[in-house]
């Protein structure tokens, strides 16, 4: 196993002016994708009408209503979830020096789904905002347990242990989830939609409730940037440089929980964004997490927006949930990563 960070040391010295320019270009692409995501879909709506719907809203127009109530929330959710997942993945990979660490592999989504199903089953919860809390807790607990199990395996938290523990733990929790769903038809009715991992029909009120957590998680992550860079050189080096590694890890984990829990609660389980994006970004900007994190946010949002547009257009007029499409994009990359990074 080669540590993902140390391999690309030679890229460390890319000049800040280029990186700033890149960030600007990225933001431009993001805005384009956002407009494309709002403009494209089952109903044909001209760009002019999209513009009007956003800035000169007319209540009597059906198309304007579609834009405002369906497409705009969906696009904003894609943007937030993509960015949050990507940052969370980057932080996880940086903290653990493990190229496979990511929300999906650690079973965050399945844990969140299980918690939601359990809450519906036991307490009869049916409000999305309460789901959010259970999803947050379930995701965090699962990720913690998977990491714990992986660290108990032979050789500590290796990519193999992490993936195996994550997969098997996810299977176990998935089993319990489907067991509950089989036993209790009513629970199934209530959560079926949420479980598919779709951005469609997202509730803008829920987004409003979750945004504070995402913002706190986001800024916490950005503030940790340089410390994560140090820690990604290895725990020993970081300690040698005088870093209090335990604190950095705790704060990093907090920001991950806020970001992932928040996004899982709005969009259900959506995998692979957190795994793929940090690798692309490291390829683009090098190993400095002060740059990796903002780039990851932009690229994550762009990728999820594009995937969502694709999911809407491939089988038009059927709209696939983006949670089902991401593995098709992500798994090949996962395989590529293993081929190139796992040497033994």
């Amino acid at each position, binding site marked *: 196993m080669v540590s993902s960070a140390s391999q690309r040391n030679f890229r460390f010295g890319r000049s800040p002016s280029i990186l700033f320019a890149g960030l600007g270009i990225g933001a431009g692409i993001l805005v384009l994708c956002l407009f494309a995501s709002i403009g494209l879909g089952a109903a044909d709506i001209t760009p002019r009408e999209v513009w009007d719907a956003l800035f000169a809203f007319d209540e009597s127009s059906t198309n304007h209503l579609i834009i405002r109530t369906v497409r705009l929330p969906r696009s904003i959710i894609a943007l937030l979830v993509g960015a949050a997942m990507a940052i969370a993945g980057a932080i996880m990979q940086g903290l653990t020096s493990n190229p*496979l660490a990511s929300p999906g592999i650690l079973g965050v989504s399945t844990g969140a789904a299980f918690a939601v199903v359990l809450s519906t089953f036991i307490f009869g919860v049916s409000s999305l905002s309460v789901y959010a809390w259970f999803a947050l807790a379930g995701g965090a607990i699962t990720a913690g347990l998977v990491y714990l*199990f992986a660290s*108990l*395996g*032979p*050789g500590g938290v290796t*990519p*193999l*242990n992490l*993936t*195996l*523990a994550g*997969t*098997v*733990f996810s*299977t*176990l929790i998935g*089993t*319990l989830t*489907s*067991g509950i769903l*089989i*036993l209790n038809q009513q629970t199934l009715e209530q959560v079926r939609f949420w479980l*598919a991992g779709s951005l469609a029909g997202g509730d803008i009120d829920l987004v409003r409730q979750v945004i504070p957590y995402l913002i706190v998680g986001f800024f916490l992550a950005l503030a940790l940037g340089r410390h994560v860079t140090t820690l990604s050189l290895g725990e020993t080096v970081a300690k040698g440089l005088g870093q209090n590694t335990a604190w950095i890890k705790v704060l990093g984990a907090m920001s991950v929980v806020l970001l992932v829990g928040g996004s899982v609660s709005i969009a259900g389980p959506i*995998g692979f964004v957190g795994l793929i994006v940090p690798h692309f970004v490291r390829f683009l900007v090098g190993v400095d997490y002060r740059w990796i994190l903002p780039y990851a946010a932009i690229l994550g949002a762009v990728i999820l927006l594009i995937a969502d547009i694709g999911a809407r257009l491939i*089988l038009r007029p*059927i709209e*696939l*949930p983006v949670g*089902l*499409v*991401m*593995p*098709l994009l*992500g*798994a*090949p990359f*996962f*395989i590529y990563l*293993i*081929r*190139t990074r*796992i040497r*033994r």
Partner: protein
Amino acid sequence: MSTWLVIRSAQVPVSFRLNRRVPSLLMILGILILAMMIASIGYGEYPIPPLDVVKTLLGLETSNADYAFIVNTLRFPRVLVALLVGMALAIAGTITQGILRNPLAAPGIIGINAGAALAAVTLIIVFPNVPISLLPLAAFAGGFTIFTLIYLSAWNGGSSPIRLVLIGIGFSLMTAAITNILTTFGNINSVSQALVWLAGSVYGRSWDEVNALLPWLFVFVPIVLIMARDLNVLNLGDEIARGVGTALEWRRGILLVSSVALAGASVATAGTIGFVGFIAPHIARRLVGPSHEGLLLTSALTGGLLVITADLIGRSLFAPIELPCGLITSAIGAPYFLYLMIQQRKY
């Protein structure tokens, strides 16, 4: 007294060298399986006393004329399918674990089951009218294709067991996604049929399924048993295997194809019943040690017992609601897997 029992014939160039404990263990397992089968056939909304079950199975008269229908048409084929599927999965798992020298490499974990499931679901949803006997064939083709892809992708100047497992997981995720898409947008009738089947259940299995599954076992189990000794050698590593004169790639190829065939046929019959192929060989290894002649048989019977028991538990735990036995085996298998992973640290 030696701990080994050698069975050798002058006419046929085949010999078995069994641990002395194997025959008695097989007998105990056989009795347990019979007892479980009788219990499972007798249990249900319409209970039948064990003695009547045995009588009906043997074709004798019983006090109640309905028993014959319930036992022979409804419950016996189901239990039989559970037994056969468990055996097939367990043998498949023993082979992959032995060849890949990796105790974690069960067909379910390295993606064979997912590939087989995808092929079968495609067949059910896209071509709803094909006969049931074609399902195992499709599942075999699917499992084999995926396994080839995994093996090739994992080959990077030599195959590594770790890469193989991880890449298998990657392919499982991908095939599972395609299966999900199919079940989300297929015709609702075929989808509900496919979903029942995907959950890993022997619910409603009839003689058709038994008949579709049996030929696969009849062909591949003897092949595997004859090659058990090769499995022992392959288990020692490629260099030693070449050193003692095994035609390495050939033998490995045949064994792997048999493993995929058995796993595929059982997936085609009962869906993905998780962790049987992983857990049964481990239990068997504890019972009879690592030599494959005895291990294969013991593991097969353990697997059969496991699935029959899981099915009975799934039916009785929350009766009248039925949990698919795949859920039960996963609930047992997954914690065991984690336990085993932690245990390995000691070596």
